[in-house]
């Protein structure tokens, strides 16, 4: 029981990170119907940006953990959003209206380019990072087993919930969100009503990238290490999460992320940690066979 509870806490933490990345996949798919395979690497860039941010904070002598986390978060989100904007502008927009496979290939190209760029710029060796947010508390103790929650885990889950609530509000209630949903349903008609479709798509990419930056930062702080290749596996798992929840559906991405986190952590805890990725991707295969639209993937649902 104690062991189960501990694993549940770990799973929710990991699932939050996957969910945040999955939102980026699902929003971009919703609006232009393409899988942005470079999104995992945008997440990786976000991780590196926050690593650099923390080093800068240390250099400038900012030692207060909450202040540093907020500053680094804003820095990473801003920079990574610029990356998201640039990728869309350079690699996808010229191919819009081309055959469906073209932007997909372009996305894979961007993914490889970003990995190699970071490998060259930052080196191939994994970069360690000592988290500013240390410690935690014992939630519950029995049979000589402590169920521990770290402050970092709380930060991750709270931040994720806050961001998801915020984004759901933006999509559901604001003019920008209405505009995104309108573009998603009928781009031509939206432009006839005066909606700047190109700008809306750019903003969607920037929003997805900013969320990926948050995920990248939390991933780096949680695992304490980052290298140029982390985006690949994390990206594919978040993609699995988006498909599991129903690609195009915002709540689906969150649910899918949590489920993938649960499956992965519990598989590692009770069966074998070597095969945890197999379990996660096995779920992808099963979903694609038995429920290709995903758990919440009904087209009428609110999605972007």
């Amino acid at each position, binding site marked *: 029981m104690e062991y189960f509870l501990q694993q549940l806490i770990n799973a929710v933490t990991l699932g939050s990170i996957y969910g945040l990345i999955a939102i980026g996949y699902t929003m971009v798919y919703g609006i232009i119907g393409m899988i942005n395979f470079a999104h995992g690497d945008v997440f990786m860039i976000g991780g590196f940006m926050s690593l650099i941010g923390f080093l800068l904070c240390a250099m400038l002598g900012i030692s207060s953990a909450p202040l540093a986390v907020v500053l680094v978060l804003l820095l990473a989100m801003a920079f990574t959003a610029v990356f998201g904007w640039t990728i869309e502008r350079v690699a996808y927009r010229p191919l819009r209206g081309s055959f469906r496979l073209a932007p997909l290939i372009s996305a894979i190209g961007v993914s490889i380019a970003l990995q190699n760029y970071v490998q060259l710029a930052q080196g191939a060796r994994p970069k360690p990072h000592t988290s500013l947010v240390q410690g935690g508390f014992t939630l519950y103790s029995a049979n000589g087993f402590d169920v521990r929650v770290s402050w970092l885990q709380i930060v991750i889950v709270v931040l994720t919930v806050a961001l998801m609530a915020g984004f759901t509000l*933006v999509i559901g209630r604001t003019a920008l969100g209405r505009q995104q949903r309108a573009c998603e349903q009928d781009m031509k008609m939206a432009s006839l009503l*005066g909606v700047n479709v190109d700008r809306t798509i750019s903003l969607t990419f920037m929003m997805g990238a900013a969320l990926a930056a948050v995920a990248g930062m939390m991933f780096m702080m949680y695992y304490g290490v980052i290298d140029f290749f982390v985006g690949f596996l994390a990206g594919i798992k978040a993609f699995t999460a988006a498909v599991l929840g129903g690609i195009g559906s915002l709540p689906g991405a969150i649910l899918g992320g949590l489920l993938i986190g649960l499956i992965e952590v519990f598989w590692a805890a009770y069966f074998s940690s070597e095969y945890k990725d197999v379990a996660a991707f096995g779920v992808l295969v099963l979903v694609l066979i038995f429920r290709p639209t995903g758990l919440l993937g009904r087209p009428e649902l609110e999605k972007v």
Partner: protein
Amino acid sequence: MTPLIEVEHLTMRFGGLTAVDDVSFTAFPGQITAIIGPNGAGKTTVFNCITGFYRPTEGRLTLRGGDREYLLERMVGFRIAARARVARTFQNIRLFAGMTVLENLLVAQHNALMRASGYTLLGVLGIGAYGRAERGAVERARAWLERVKLIGQADRPAGELPYGSQRRLEIARAMCTGPALLCLDEPAAGLNPPESAELNELLISIRDQDRVGILLIEHDMSVVMSISDRVVVLDYGRKIADGTPAEVRANPAVIRAYLGDEEAPEAAHG
């Protein structure tokens, strides 16, 4: 009276096919100008050129709004709607089916809302006039829902409305953009006679109350003849007649185009 839109020598070719061939006409504010003609005459192509779907092969499209002139053939699609204020509806209805009726009308007003919300950033922080702008937009949307008799359906998904209501909603949505020129592509198609009569009233009220210029593609001659101020007749991409409904009805070229030479023996054999 200065014309609202001047179409001069408009030509649109697709490869070897000339869909619109050297068509010129003008439409005035506060008037309904009907564009009629047999199937394939190029009516919808003219609309597609005006609203920026197609870039014309040749010709000029000048829209006068306020004290400015806009050359529509040089503008990107969404700017034609946002700056030159041209709105349009489609032959096959294109509502945002998954969004509510009210949201459909709010999307049409999003440019003002985006500016008021500081492109969402300030709006999220609660700064600026976003709240007031949003309330204004909702009020305007509700006023239009009253006019098209859909006020009770505001929160239903637009796709669930019956066909005739969807047609009216599409016109209300186009009007929510605050257009100077409203292009309607067969708004009466598929409507039963009472619905059609209601539509006529709506169009006349838009012309007389809102002083919006209307370009109307319509096959139903009773609608065309009863509400239009001017009629432009196209056949095989060329303009064959232009004038008041009475003039056009008496024009021999129009009769020939509609009835054909063989089926009008008195015209063919004298």
